[in-house]
């Protein structure tokens, strides 16, 4: 199956290891992965802050560079959900609206693609640890993908997954919200970290780099001994020596 990777700007800038893991997992599962060079950021920072026109520019660039792909896969539920907004964002430009929808229709978040398109729930990974999972808001509510990560994690050998209290509460990232409303965001991420600590997990797993950046940032600031991993890093553990 042919897959184009939409790596996301956060992965490209900060979490290149996650991006590599995504590529390797997909290839191991039989996909032929390419990387369309024209891709940029999905436009969410501008869109969510009310800068529609600037977001439209990003959207058009993304559509042009990815519309010839068969499947588009991204390691971020939030960025995948942003693609689903494109046709609304470009609703006044008939020439773009249809193209936007076509791109949205073939875009999948990484775990969603593995479970729903490749129809694989056991990728043969092994990761002995006590872990908990952070369900990100956009992936569960806007993309409506609530189950795929759990199906995959359930089959990871050695992984003990502890349910996270109030998992449905936002971690306080919200893009520019984290800086614009820093004092409120701080309380939100603190509560999230408290719940994570309560699970006594050594590892927090998530499927969105934005949330990870926020939660990990707070965990590290507080000096808590909890690792934060993208789910691709957990799933890419069959290859020896690669975590």
């Amino acid at each position, binding site marked *: 199956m042919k897959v184009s990777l939409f790596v996301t700007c956060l992965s490209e800038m900060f979490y290149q290891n996650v991006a590599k893991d995504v*590529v390797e997992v997909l290839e191991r599962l039989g996909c032929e992965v390419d990387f369309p060079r024209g891709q940029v*950021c999905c436009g969410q920072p501008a*869109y*969510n802050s*009310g800068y529609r026109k600037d977001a439209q520019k*990003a959207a058009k660039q993304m559509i042009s560079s990815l519309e010839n792909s068969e499947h588009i896969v991204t390691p971020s539920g939030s960025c995948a959900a942003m693609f689903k907004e494109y046709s609304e964002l470009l609703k006044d430009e008939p020439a773009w609206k249809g193209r936007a929808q076509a791109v949205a229709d073939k875009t999948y978040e990484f775990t969603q693609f593995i479970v729903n398109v490749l129809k694989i729930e056991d990728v043969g990974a092994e990761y002995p640890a006590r872990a908990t999972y952070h369900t990100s808001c956009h992936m569960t509510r806007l993309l409506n993908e609530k189950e795929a990560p759990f199906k995959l994690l359930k089959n990871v050998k050695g992984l003990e997954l502890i349910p996270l209290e*109030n998992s449905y509460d936002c971690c306080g990232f919200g893009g520019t919200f*984290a800086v*614009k409303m820093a004092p409120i965001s701080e309380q939100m991420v603190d509560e999230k970290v408290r719940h994570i600590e309560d699970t006594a997990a050594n590892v927090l797993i998530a499927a969105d780099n934005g949330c990870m950046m926020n939660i990990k940032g707070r965990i590290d600031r507080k000096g808590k001994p909890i690792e934060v991993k993208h789910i691709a890093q957990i799933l890419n553990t069959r290859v020896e020596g690669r975590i």
Partner: protein
Amino acid sequence: MAMKIGDKPFFDRVDDALEDNFMRNAMAEAQDGLRGRKLKATVEDEQIGDWEEWRSAGEEIRRHTLENLDYYLNQLSENFARQGGHVYFAETAEDATRYIQDVAKKKNAKKITKAKSMVTEEIGLNQALEEIGCDVYETDLAEYILQIDDHDRPSHIVVPSLHKNKEKIRDTFRDKANYTGTSEPCELTAFARSQLRETFLEADIGVTGCNFAVAESGTISLVTNEGNANMVTTFPKTQITVMGMERLVPTWEELDVMINLLSRSAVGQKITTYVTNLTPQLEEDSIDAPNEFHLVILDAGRSNALGTEFQSALHCIRCAACVNVCPVYRHIGGHAYGSIYQGPIGAVLSPILGGYEEYGELPYASSLCAACTEACPVKIPLHEHLIKHRENYVEKKGMTAEKMAMKTFGIGASSPALFKLAVKGMPAVLGPLVKDDSISSGPGPMKLWTSVREFPAPGKGNFRKWFDDHKKGRNQ
């Protein structure tokens, strides 16, 4: 008074709230309780079938009603008037209070009892009536508590005294009403009852809000639990009901659906203790009903949303399900919003009713997590409305540093070459700040980030290059 709460700027209100640990614990506990009850009465209640279908039906009813608002309002007022009721359309809050003052003056009213009404809070009715010498008595327990506590303001649209626990209420009763009992809820309630009993009997006018008005029969429907609304609407000879102009349904069939959605979403009840339906049908000599019934239909900014992208905000049935799941409300409580409408719906509605000048910051008090949208029983896309507000807000503002940054973003994001350059340049820009693989204290907007948490160090490699090498390796 009216819709606005407090005079402090937004961030000062937030700081006050964040320091109030008592209130925050109360909010978190209340939210967890209300959420759980709602889930049991909705998605988890097998008896009602598919909750999503109920939501869709609710959305459809509200959309249809609002799309034909003039027709149904006309029908409602005709049916109400035909049975002897008086209907008054108030364009502004002042129009509404003036009309009600006039009725009170004509009736020579001294005592006025009130039940179930956030909308009278919105128009500042108590104050207006007190100005002309009336004594106004709130009779919903929560409103009663706030009133005797020196007119404290509501912090939640369904449970206005949510920021107080039973101990606080006991103290208020002791200080303000010579209460000598304990903090037992039953005892506290019995005390409030005994205080209010006489007042019910003596009131000249009863004022209520309105959950739904049924257009086909000219009926006002009140969804309550305490029974006080029944006292307010039976003893006084004159009744005045104030309703937001959007709060109506075409027929009793839709009323049935809406009451299910409301009771289950608001308090997790299949049906509330009372659903009181009042039609004028006035008789001169009746002893258990008013013989004069006024219906004040309030615009007060609502028509600003009609025919705009915000129209669906008027679908709201004030169940507070969105408030009860909001993680921002959880930490800052109701008063920090500076409006009697708080939480996500407050952040959407307050700027519509009161303008951006006053409430422009509220749409930013959200991480756009969409918990509100998911919870709303009539499927209002609340988080999308918040984004729309932000769009309007930035458009109104002149050039700001943020706008510059976003323009730069737009240029960068539409040019792959520039984007690549930005990614490549990242380590050079951020590199000097990195210590132990992360950044603890950054300049500019990063400062706000690093005031709370570490910022990641930019990745060391170049993904695009890795990908090329990797591909080459695989193809060999």
